[in-house]
């Protein structure tokens, strides 16, 4: 899962970065409002974690701009403001969730994951293609009632392909989704991940189109 964290406090930013990375998230960071909004506009994220009080541009303005540019990425707002009215203001301007500081990291992670689930699977925890079942909340893949054990990248890749089922997914899309800009990887790593995934779930599920990319079909 690829998330963007827009937070100006250095310590909170680095904390969230570490925490999410350890759970296999692909994390990108922005430390002020301008950068954050720009990144959210040009890149695809699964979830955006947005602080309210930011230099250059505050969280509410970013929300408004993103939503008016019809960017529908789920957004969870963080803020030291804990009044009901502040929460309502955030939600009204297009936030999908709101968490007051100080929060528990576990709770934030759970909420981010829940936003992600809702965004990719219309509410249900299970995505199914042919006889492969992907349980998003348990992060388990089951084929013919047998569990297939995947590593984090393979699992993320499969989710990404399921999300874009019946559509062509290119190498660069996969790279952007699974690896952050700071990871310098070559296309070999992507090939290897694809190769391993295909080997584990069965070659026929992921069709490869030379020079174009990959596709999962219903």
């Amino acid at each position, binding site marked *: 899962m690829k998330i963007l964290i827009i937070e100006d406090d250095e310590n909170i930013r680095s904390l969230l970065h570490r925490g999410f990375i350890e759970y296999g998230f692909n994390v990108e960071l922005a430390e002020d409002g301008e950068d954050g909004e720009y990144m959210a506009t040009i890149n695809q994220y699964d979830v955006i974690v947005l602080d309210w009080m930011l230099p250059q541009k505050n969280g509410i303005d970013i929300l408004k701009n993103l939503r008016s540019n019809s960017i529908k990425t789920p957004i969870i707002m963080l803020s030291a403001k804990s009044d009901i009215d502040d929460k309502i203001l955030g939600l009204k301007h297009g936030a999908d969730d709101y968490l007051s*500081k100080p929060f528990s990291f576990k709770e934030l992670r759970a909420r981010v994951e829940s936003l992600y689930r809702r965004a990719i699977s219309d509410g249900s925890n299970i995505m199914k293609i042919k006889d492969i079942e992907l349980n998003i909340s348990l992060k388990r893949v089951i084929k013919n009632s047998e569990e297939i054990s995947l590593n984090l990248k393979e699992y993320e890749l499969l989710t990404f392909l399921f999300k874009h089922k019946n559509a062509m997914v290119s190498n660069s899309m996969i790279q952007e989704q699974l690896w952050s800009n700071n990871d310098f990887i070559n296309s070999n790593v992507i090939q290897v991940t694809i190769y391993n995934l295909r080997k584990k779930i069965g070659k026929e599920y992921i069709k490869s189109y030379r020079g174009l990319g990959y596709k999962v079909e219903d």
Partner: protein
Amino acid sequence: MKIRHLKLRVLLWFGFVSSIAFFLISFILYNTLEHSINNKSINSMYEMAEYIEYTLWILVPILLIILIFLVSRVIDKVLNPIKEITKTANEISISDFSSSIEEPTDNDEVREFVRSFNGMIYRLKDGVERMDRFNHDVSHELKTPLTVIKGEVEITLDRPRKSAEYIKSLQIIGEEASQIENMIKSLLFLSKYSKSNIKHSFEFCELDYILFKVLDRYKIQLKNKNINIHLKNIEKIKKKVNPVLIESIFSNLIDNAIKYSNKDKNIYISLFQKEKIRFIIEDEGIGIPKDKIQKLTHRFYRVDESRNRKIKGFGLGLSIVKNSVELHDGTMHIESKEKKGTIVIIDL
């Protein structure tokens, strides 16, 4: 037995006293008349005396009733505002200061009384509001360091780690704890002195000496940013002041001037005496937008809304300065131009 109603008590007393007075007067009048009978025709005199006696018997009660009625009106006029005040006072609580008493139209003591009562409500309301705002600010300011501390602990404990990671994590927690400590120290400092207890702490001090002592503490910071301090006009000044507060004025203003200046700039400082003692500090820093100068001295106010922690601080410095200046019956004046710099003038 005590009668609880003031009005009834006053009326009873009044009735009692005036009846006695009337009877005494009639008695004396009657006696004088009887005394003078000897010289005149006895019959006509008796008739007259009787006539007077009867008139008095009728007149006195009527007069009494009229008087009591008038007195009752006067008492009502005084007591009604008091009843109103009692009612309002009962309605007032920490969470509800909406009531006040309608002012009487006559310009008298009662109106004065009502006015001061309403004034008191207003001042209490203001005080409670400021306290609320203050509590709100404090808890808000504590939330960011607390978020970091909580998060660090949670994430670090999530799985076994190398000792270097524990060290890093504990260092961050330590930093944030000091942040909280400093904030609380500043807040305590702000509430330690008041107008009523400040005079006891006054002693003769050399202000220029305090200034140099403070400047000495900023040596390293000045060197790091390559900022030059120009001492324009420093006079030897002795005055009875609170040295801790004076030091807080100098150090906060110098600290701000350094914090909000970019590298390789100048700071100009003067301290001299004319009618009053004047301290001027001028920087070539980032300046303050015009509409924000007013709010500068509010507690926790920071020009940059995000509370950008690249420039450390809680927005308490200038409220400490203002507080310290006011406790010395002085004044502070701030002028600023964005991207040009700021001048702060203190008169003590």
